[in-house]
């Protein structure tokens, strides 16, 4: 079983957000970046578990500039076999997906795992796009995966329900909470990661189809109105008459 795991880099949620160039560009000065949690905690770890059980390898891929190597090394330290970085600062999901699909077509992966979304833009677009470019089935929001020979049984998390299904053969999967337990890289992993192969490949010449033209920071709340704990009638009145939400 050879699995490709797509990993992305996102600002840590606690980072302060600001913009530059007349609010058209994200200001990354002083921001701590992390591997997207869905990619690291769930997609990567479940891929490792499967290959530990069935044999095979886990390749991680990132579409991004050299400054992303830090998260790639972390994925290698957690246990990935090798890594590919497509060298382009991709501007939209289409460019990312096209480059991932181009790489996948040149190799022989049995499955491709992604996170359900990145935590900065919450796009949830790349997985479906890769699946379409490869003409593979897509199992999204997967919280449970059991592989039995050529048949995989998956559980998907939907609004207010869970859906169990079966897929034969290769597919693209997007990982949700529950799929695996986070693994912390140990010293040995970190040392070994340094010598694992990281291949940098040039990007295909795909043109982005969407672009951010402006960012804005929403106005801060005007301040909390404190209500005396003995006067819940006043809270109900305010919610009804002032806020008009009940």
């Amino acid at each position, binding site marked *: 079983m050879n699995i490709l795991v797509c990993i992305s880099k996102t*600002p840590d*949620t*606690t980072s302060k*957000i600001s913009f530059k160039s007349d609010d058209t560009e994200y200001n990354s000065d002083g921001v701590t970046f992390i591997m997207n*949690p869905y990619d690291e905690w769930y997609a990567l770890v479940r891929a490792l578990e499967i290959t530990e059980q069935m044999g095979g390898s886990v390749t991680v891929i990132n579409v991004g500039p050299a400054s992303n190597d830090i998260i790639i090394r972390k994925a290698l330290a957690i246990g990935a076999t090798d890594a590919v970085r497509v060298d382009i600062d991709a501007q939209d*999901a*289409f460019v990312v*997906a096209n480059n991932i699909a181009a790489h996948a077509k040149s190799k022989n992966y049995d499955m491709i795992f992604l996170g359900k979304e990145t*935590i*900065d*833009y*919450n*796009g*949830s*677009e790349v*997985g*479906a*796009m890769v*699946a*379409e470019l490869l003409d593979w*089935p*897509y199992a*999204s*929001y997967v919280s449970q995966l059991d592989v039995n020979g050529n048949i995989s049984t998956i559980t*998907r*998390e*939907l*609004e*207010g*329900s*869970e*859906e*169990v*299904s*079966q*897929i034969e053969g290769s*597919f693209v999967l997007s990982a949700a*909470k529950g799929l695996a337990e986070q693994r912390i890289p140990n010293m040995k992993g970190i040392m070994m990661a340094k010598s694992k192969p990281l291949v940098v490949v040039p990007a295909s010449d795909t043109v982005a*189809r*969407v*672009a951010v033209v*402006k*960012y*804005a*920071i*929403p106005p801060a*709340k005007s301040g*909390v*109105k*404190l209500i005396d*704990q003995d006067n*819940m*009638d006043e*809270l*109900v009145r*305010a*919610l009804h008459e002032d*806020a008009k*939400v*009940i």
Partner: protein
Amino acid sequence: MSVLAYIESPGGHIKKIGFEVATYASKLAVSLNTTSVAIVIGKAENAGSLGQYGITKVIHINPNDDVSFDSQLYTKIVSDLYKEHGANTLVMAHSANGKSFAGRLAIRLNAGCVSGVNALPSVENGFLVSKSVYSGKATATYNISTPDRVITVMGNSIQPEKIGNDVTPDLVNIDLGSPKVKVTEIKVEAGGVPLPEAELVVSAGRGMKGPENWGIVEDLANALGAATACSRPVADADWRPHHEHVGQTGVAIRPNLYIAIGISGAIQHLAGVNNSKVIVVINKDPEAPFFKAADYGVVGDLFDVVPRLTEAIKKFKNQ
């Protein structure tokens, strides 16, 4: 030319998010000077009511079948109809299934895609749509430069608006073939409104001390007709089911009212809830960070305050 809306009908019934998408599509059609066409796949007893929200034509595919979701099958159905109707924009819900084939459709239709938009686009100069980014700390406006577009609409972004009458759907039966994803079981979670669609949400955190104390939260939710939610440690400890977990790593919601009980307001929690219209925080610690993100705050012991609030709500409802 037209605007095409894909409307989902989970369990054979179009829900509020479906009418929001219909409203979005019909308003967009007006600003683009065209008409809106809706596609419904599988059982949906209320498909005709989409007309009330301004949809001109409803195409109902296999109205008597339970058509389980397979992204490849759904992509084929929707993209074929998109081409047949000469559409240039496809609108769908930012739901688990919607997101699972919006990207596929964008590839199939050579379209630019923006997911999770929170308002109608501006079409005077390009096609500009906005969405909330960076855990709700900012809004980004996108331009879609391709002639074809796929957008998914975040729940509670637009108010469903009745402006017309029921229409008679065109019923179409097609051969569904054999989908590659074979659904064997759907487990519906107990409880009323699914969290992402709820307008009122009562949420509680570690301040509750233990799962045995949740009765007062449920009483408040019942009095309001609200859905219940929780913070991550509460779900991790199995005090509450996982689907109630809101925040960065759980569900992101934007209800009209979010009542946070015994939740400190960590940034990762706020990431999933700070797009709520009105936030009420009940916490015994006046320094709890959540108060900074709140509209109304009550400093006090939740075990006293929550039952009192429930009583006040009941009194108000009985008036």
